[in-house]
């Protein structure tokens, strides 16, 4: 089922507060074969927040996760994520193109800290593959 084009421009509810702990950073780094021994989070860590926002969005729009592949990802960081941060992500739909039976969905997730300051903007293109 194609995604409804009227979603462009819509913002979705922000995710629940996510406490960034040393343990979570250690686990995330270890999952990519690296080690985290203090300091800022690995650069791609904010994807954890963005994924939570994306999953909620896909569920709300009844898009089957298994039909989605990641097309593009960009991060622009205002500051590194550090342990002790409590973060939320707010996703908005920036664009939608329908190409050859696939939906190409441009999303923008803004990650904020507990004071409401922008930490990072994660822009993702999601390709929703149509039924062949």
């Amino acid at each position: 089922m194609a995604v409804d084009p009227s979603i462009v421009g819509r913002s979705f509810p922000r995710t629940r507060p996510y406490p960034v702990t040393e343990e979570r950073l250690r686990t995330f780094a270890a999952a990519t074969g690296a080690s985290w021994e203090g300091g800022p989070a690995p650069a791609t860590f904010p994807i954890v927040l963005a994924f939570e926002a994306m999953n909620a969005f896909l569920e709300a729009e009844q898009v089957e996760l298994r039909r989605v592949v990641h097309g593009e990802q960009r991060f622009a960081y205002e500051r590194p994520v550090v342990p002790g941060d409590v973060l939320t992500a707010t996703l908005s739909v920036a664009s939608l193109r329908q190409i050859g039976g696939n939906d190409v969905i441009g999303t923008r997730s803004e990650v904020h800290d507990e004071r409401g300051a922008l930490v990072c903007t994660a822009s993702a293109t999601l390709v929703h593959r149509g039924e062949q």
Partner: protein
Amino acid sequence: MTRLEPGAALPAQEYAVTRADLVRYAGASGDFNPIHWSERVATHVGLPGVIAHGMYTMALAARAVSTWTDDATVLELGCKFTQPVVVPDDDIGVVVVVAGTVKSVEDGRATLALEVRSGEQKVLGMPRAVVVVDG
């Protein structure tokens, strides 16, 4: 740390990726899309097999940047996921190679152009990082 001078080639970093790594990454990232662990689902939706999370490959690119720059603060990181990294169901997995070049250094920031390959194939489109440099 490699000196970040314009035109400098950054030493290629090699990382092996196995199915077990993908399972671990799914748990750590919250991306449980079955195309990253189920051959049945991956092939059913038209993929060549179980593929690595794009974000896993991007995380390897970020690891290389971290190694080259001695953990410099990253200001921007981005790429397109142009080719899937197919991860075989064996204990060896697949090797991802991250190479890079310093494109420019100005105003306290260095722009790095990366090249990320699996076998002969480039798997990321225009991977790029901007990091803070001292002085």
